[in-house]
């Protein structure tokens, strides 16, 4: 039960790119197509699950003062492994993702989960947390990629969806389109949060002011 709780929080309540707004660099950069988003997501799932596992495994022998260096070493090794494996078995994807594969090392999601969760919790919970966060990240990237690909080209996963009189909005697959799509998705999620809160009879979260609580992500749980 505890494992399920840690796993499922990454899928909605703490959905990394859309709720925590962590790991935005690859989220915005590689999501020109659904397939690229999915590929990037899978690489992150691999890295974050194994890094959570290893960090949690060695958390008791890591001295407090050098823990960040240890976490980064673990994450960096895993990322290089992913890079090598991708070159060996999925070269076209590697060509597409380019520099963003090695940049997974500095994805704050990886280090964030190691520091905030895996470094303090037992192995099975850390793995559940990493897997949940990774899958949430993948779903978000695939969704964002699919939205941009659909409006930018009319295709999703290379399958034609909109055809005929549809005029592709090329803006959507360019860099600014990523910001617009992300903004609209965030607005949509906030709207959903308000509707959900109202249905439960709770007061709707107030309009954004300054400070952390302005984000409606944690409006549900005090």
């Amino acid at each position, binding site marked *: 039960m505890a494992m399920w709780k840690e796993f499922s929080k990454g899928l909605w309540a703490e959905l990394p790119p859309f709720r925590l707004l962590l790991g935005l660099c690859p989220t915005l950069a590689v999501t020109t197509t659904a397939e690229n988003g999915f590929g990037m997501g899978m690489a992150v799932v691999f890295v974050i699950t194994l890094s959570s596992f290893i960090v949690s495994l*060695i958390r008791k*022998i*890591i*001295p407090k*003062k*050098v823990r960040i*260096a*240890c976490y980064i*070493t*673990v994450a*960096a*090794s895993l990322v*290089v*492994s992913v890079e*090598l*494996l991708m*070159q*060996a*078995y999925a*070269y*076209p994807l590697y*060509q597409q993702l380019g520099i963003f594969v090695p940049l997974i090392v500095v994805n704050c999601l990886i280090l964030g989960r190691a520091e905030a969760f895996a470094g303090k919790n037992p192995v099975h919970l850390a793995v559940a947390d990493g897997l949940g966060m990774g899958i949430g990240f993948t779903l978000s990237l695939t969704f964002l990629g699919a939205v941009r690909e659909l409006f930018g080209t009319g295709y999703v996963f290379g399958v034609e969806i909109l055809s005929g009189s549809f005029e592709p909005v090329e803006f959507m697959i360019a860099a600014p389109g990523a910001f617009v799509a992300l903004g609209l998705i965030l607005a949509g999620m906030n709207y959903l949060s308000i509707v959900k809160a109202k249905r439960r009879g709770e007061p709707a979260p107030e309009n954004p002011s300054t400070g952390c609580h302005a984000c409606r992500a944690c409006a549900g749980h005090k």
Partner: protein
Amino acid sequence: MREILKMIVVLTCISGISGFALSSLKQMTAPTIELQLLTFVQGPSLKQVLPDYTNDPVQERKKFTNPLTDKPVNVFPLKVDGELKAVAIEGFGGGYGDNIGVMVGFDLEDNKLVGIGITTMKETPGLGTRIAEPDFRAQFNGISESEAKLKSQGGVIDALSGATISSGGTVAAVQDAGKIYSALKADILEAFK
């Protein structure tokens, strides 16, 4: 003191294990990665060198040792209907961003260039990347190695306006491949007889 010692030992161990694991993984994946590069990078460039070859040059490639650098170099035979038309060799030249890799085809009879194809480059999109366009590449078809220089260097190649360095890098890569070809010609003839 004990604490500092522990920090050093733990961090050293983690880094050491990581380094060891990565170097073995690199060795394990090296042959597969080379094959992927051949299929996805060098293979397609061969089509630009001589579009109508009918054999499988990647399968039939032979490895030689470059006598100038002592490094291994792949030579790809390009055949039309079983007859050896040309061999392709990859050369490198400094571009605007990193080295430009150029696959150069040589006619074994008269040593002239049959064509070139770009394998790898990190040139400025829209400017330097125009070296991969057919118009620029076609200038190399049928000329000799000594002619394959920019006009300012006494050759026949028109540099792309706004991309002189990328054009120069391509020429340097062609010259590089030409040097390898000249040095290996006797061995190549022997091997592909």
